[in-house]
């Protein structure tokens, strides 16, 4: 609307001061911009509005940690998410949570052993007993397991120091209890 007015305005004065010409262009550009932004806003509004609660890792982790976090997330989606769920909350009393899980966070490296070799028998997580076997993932490398651990111990509000490769490898060695 505004642009039309100023267009008319600039046509009226035949002399056409350069100024008003420029102003006309400007508001033309503005209204086009508005037209471009509007649908974007509307599209955003009709999206799911998903927000991850992982924002704070940007501040907490260094570049290296963030890289591992992000590779770990991809591995998580592939190997873990079907059972432990996208939000790390597990499933009822069948599959234990990773989010805010004492079992995991009390010994992050030891969880690497569970990832690699699987687990059978009862475990207690946050005072609830679970008894669903977890399959082994023998093909995952120590580095991949480290990345997975960095992700699960720092996603969904979990906060842990970055587990080292040495810690992971020590936990993966046979005959180490915990």
């Amino acid at each position, binding site marked *: 609307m505004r642009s039309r007015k100023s267009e008319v305005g600039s046509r009226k004065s035949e002399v056409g001061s350069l100024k008003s010409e420029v102003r006309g262009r400007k508001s033309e550009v503005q209204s086009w911009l508005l037209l471009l932004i509007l649908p974007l806003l509307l*599209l955003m509004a009709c999206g799911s509005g998903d927000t991850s609660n992982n924002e704070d890792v940007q501040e907490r982790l260094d570049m290296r940690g963030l890289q591992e976090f992000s590779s770990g997330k991809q591995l998580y989606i592939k190997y873990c998410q*079907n*059972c432990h769920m996208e939000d790390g909350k597990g499933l009822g*009393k069948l599959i234990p949570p990773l989010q805010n899980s004492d079992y995991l966070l009390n010994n992050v490296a030891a969880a690497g052993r569970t990832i690699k070799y699987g687990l059978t028998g009862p475990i207690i997580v946050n005072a609830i007993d679970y008894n669903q*076997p977890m*399959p082994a993932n023998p093909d995952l490398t120590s580095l991949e397991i480290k990345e997975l651990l960095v992700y699960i111990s720092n996603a969904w509000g979990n906060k842990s120091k970055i587990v080292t490769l040495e810690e992971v490898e020590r936990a993966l060695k046979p005959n180490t209890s915990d």
Partner: protein
Amino acid sequence: MRALKLLVVLIVLVGTSSCGGNKEVKKLPIYGRQEFKEVDGKVDTIYHTIPDFTFYDQDSLAVTLASFDGKVYVADFFFGTCPTICPIMKQQMLRVYERFNDNPEFGILSHTIDPAHDTVAYLKDFSMRLGVPNSKVWKFVTGDQDEIYRIGSAEGYLVPVGADSDAPGGFIHSGAFILIDKEKRIRGLYDGTKPIEVDALMNDIPKLLAEYEK
């Protein structure tokens, strides 16, 4: 220039209105092979229906097709030790259960495809841990393995199920949620591992129920 602008506005309006979803109530499709029979000079369509079965649920009660008389229900196939898609299917089915479990015209039927392992006692523990207190609405059933495979196949729910030593966990099965109407016809097939498809299922259940309102 103005026409162009108008066009952009129109595109925007059309584009964004499509995210609101179609408000018009359309009847759900009827799946499966149809047969046609002439009765008194008129052609009758005979639709594919689920054949009868006898299974046992987590409370040791016999479950037959008649257990779902007067109900629309959602069926699926899983096994308790499944390392792949079952947990996410159960998480999604739990959403459906929580939304509709008050409705006396609604039910869920989850078949194990590993009856040797998934006994009645196992299914009871499994369903309790999932947060399903009894078999009133959501029945977890076990039974004769061949009968379970038969009901999953082309004779019944039209989904692949069976033993397969190459598959993770030893069984192949579809992640489908199958929506069945009161005439035991298949009215919807949804991927139970995809929240967006399960949303579609939860949209379709009230539509199907509405078909029976007078």
